[in-house]
């Protein structure tokens, strides 16, 4: 009898749960990718669900590399990345893939030291710490740029990403621009061969690892440092000023690029000119196919992209992302209108 009871139980479980979903009958759009904008995206999807009740977005923050992989394998409806896809990757995508910029963010150096002093780093220092040539927090070169700050004689524990990551791309893109040695030894990519350090999974994992490890130094999106009350370092920009990561300094990094934006939005903002520009900032992009296989899903997606680049922008600054410059929003509007399904544009009727 027992087995029957169990089998019946299992069946009952399935039956009980089945209708629960069917009753709602909402459309589900799956996305995956960057962890960098995840705090904002999850806020967006939550807010958007209140406006468009028939559509839900399920977003898994598995890393930008994963976003690129899963959208090109078409296992998700949209991807997300903060390292632009390479020409080679775009060619292999099997269809025209749009990069739609959503917001700007800053990648910050964060650390775990007693008392969490405010630190300043030069580009050379950053590169040497991540190359493993500076190994102690009380290194003379570190003390030289941080006069009057008491730093312990602790070893520096570098924390980096273990997964393919756009945050990593931005970080190493910057290091490659400022350090020849880095460019030669390590290079650019969503995952690289790190000279030293511990791996953490996602921005969440790196922030968690830094928080749990005394003496740690890692890089995360500004929002992650902020929500976890982790200290962030000021970094010397091209103009020679030490700039703290913030919304204004991130926006300053984008002003130059907004005027010379390429048609496909793939642009690097790291190490920009400008007195007040924070040097390690980037756009973050959603990846969508120009031609959507299903009209209803495609239309829901296009509508959301429109919402995100307009109403959605107001949620950005609360989470320390910089909103898109108005010039870029215009360009995004034009791009989103180009999204089609079976040859028909999906947003023709929108303003």
């Amino acid at each position, binding site marked *: 009898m027992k*087995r029957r009871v169990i089998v019946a139980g299992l069946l009952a479980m*399935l039956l009980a749960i089945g209708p629960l979903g069917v009753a709602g009958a909402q459309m589900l759009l799956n996305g*995956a990718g960057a962890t960098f904008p995840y705090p904002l995206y999850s806020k967006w999807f939550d807010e958007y669900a209140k406006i468009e009740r028939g559509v839900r977005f*399920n977003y898994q923050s598995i890393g930008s590399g994963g976003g690129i992989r899963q959208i090109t394998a*078409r296992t998700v409806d949209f991807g997300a990345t903060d390292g632009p896809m390479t020409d080679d990757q775009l060619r292999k995508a099997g269809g025209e893939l749009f990069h739609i910029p959503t917001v700007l963010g800053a990648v910050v150096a964060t650390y775990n030291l007693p008392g969490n002093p405010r630190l300043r780093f030069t580009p050379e220092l950053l590169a040497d710490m991540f190359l493993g040539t500076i190994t102690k927090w009380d290194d003379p070169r570190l003390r030289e740029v941080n006069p009057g700050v008491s730093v312990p004689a602790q070893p520096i524990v570098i924390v980096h990403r273990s997964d393919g990551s756009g945050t990593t791309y931005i970080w190493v893109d910057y290091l490659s621009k400022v350090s020849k040695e880095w460019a030669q030894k390590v290079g650019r990519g969503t995952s690289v061969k790190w000279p030293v350090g511990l791996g953490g999974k996602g921005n969440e994992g790196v922030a968690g690892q830094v928080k749990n490890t005394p003496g740690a130094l890692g890089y995360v999106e500004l929002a992650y440092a902020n*929500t976890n009350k982790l200290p962030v370092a000021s970094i010397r920009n091209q103009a020679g000023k030490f700039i703290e990561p913030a919304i204004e300094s991130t926006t300053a990094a984008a002003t130059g690029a907004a005027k010379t934006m390429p048609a496909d939005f793939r642009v690097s903002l790291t190490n920009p000119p400008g007195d007040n520009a924070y040097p390690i900032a980037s756009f973050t992009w959603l990846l969508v196919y120009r031609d959507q296989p299903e009209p209803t899903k495609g239309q829901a997606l296009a509508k959301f992209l429109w919402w995100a680049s307009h109403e959605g922008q107001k949620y950005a600054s609360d989470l320390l992302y910089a909103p898109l410059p108005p010039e870029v929003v215009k360009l995004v509007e034009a791009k989103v209108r180009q999204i089609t399904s079976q040859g028909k544009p999906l947003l023709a009727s929108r303003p």
Partner: protein
Amino acid sequence: MTNLGRRRLIDRLMRRLAALAAGLVVLPLVVIFGFLLYQGGTAVNLDFFTQLPKPVGEPGGGMVNAIVGSLVLLGLAGLLGLPAGILAGLYLAESRDRRLTWLVRFLADVLNGVPSIVIGIFAYTVVVLPMRGFSALAGGIALAIIMIPVVLRTTEEMVRLVPASLREAALALGIPEWKVILRVVVPTARAGMVTGAMVAIARIAGETAPLLFTAFGNRFWHQGLDEPIAALPLQIFAYAIAPYDDWHRQAWAGALVLIALVFLVSLVARFATRRPGGA
């Protein structure tokens, strides 16, 4: 008799050491369970069982979708894995083909030791890629593959324990063999087979690795078996490695709930064996 004295001393020493070893083996259970009760117990509340997860960084919310998701995945895996495992187990116990049964038995034991993450990748290549999407179904299939060898081996053992006299008596009445197996042998072995099933379910209930690339996780309710689905172990993993204190709290709570589920199933399995002989 100093020699005897020495031997007695060694005997006593070894008894102590063995007892100490047994104590040390059990110790982590006590320690881990203590932490779970302490950390998880303070974090479990009604919201945990009734609310969906909140957006990143916002405190509050619960894991109700993950709890239900886990149950759905277990149900799916059971529906797929139990019949397959039981039939294969019957085959092992009843077939006279020595070589093939040896191979199946051997492969079952080997499959039992295959890392679950490898099975996850297998499910990704044969279910997720062709279906063009992560899904509850893919997760259920991966878990079913993991539970089959456990069910298979216990079924076989239990069926073999059925006295031959019982089977012969039934056969002597002229009843076809297949009916004897289904109506005499299986009911007799039922209690043991239930145990096997429960052990298998307890094992897959906590599996995380094979779900990473199959069930994938979902912040909301799933609406069909072809959609990604949340699962308790996935949620615990995601929350544990994240930096948010509130998520850590919920990860402990999730772990407590998960382990309660696993232990409950294990206990049921335990009681099922207490009464050999079935109905």
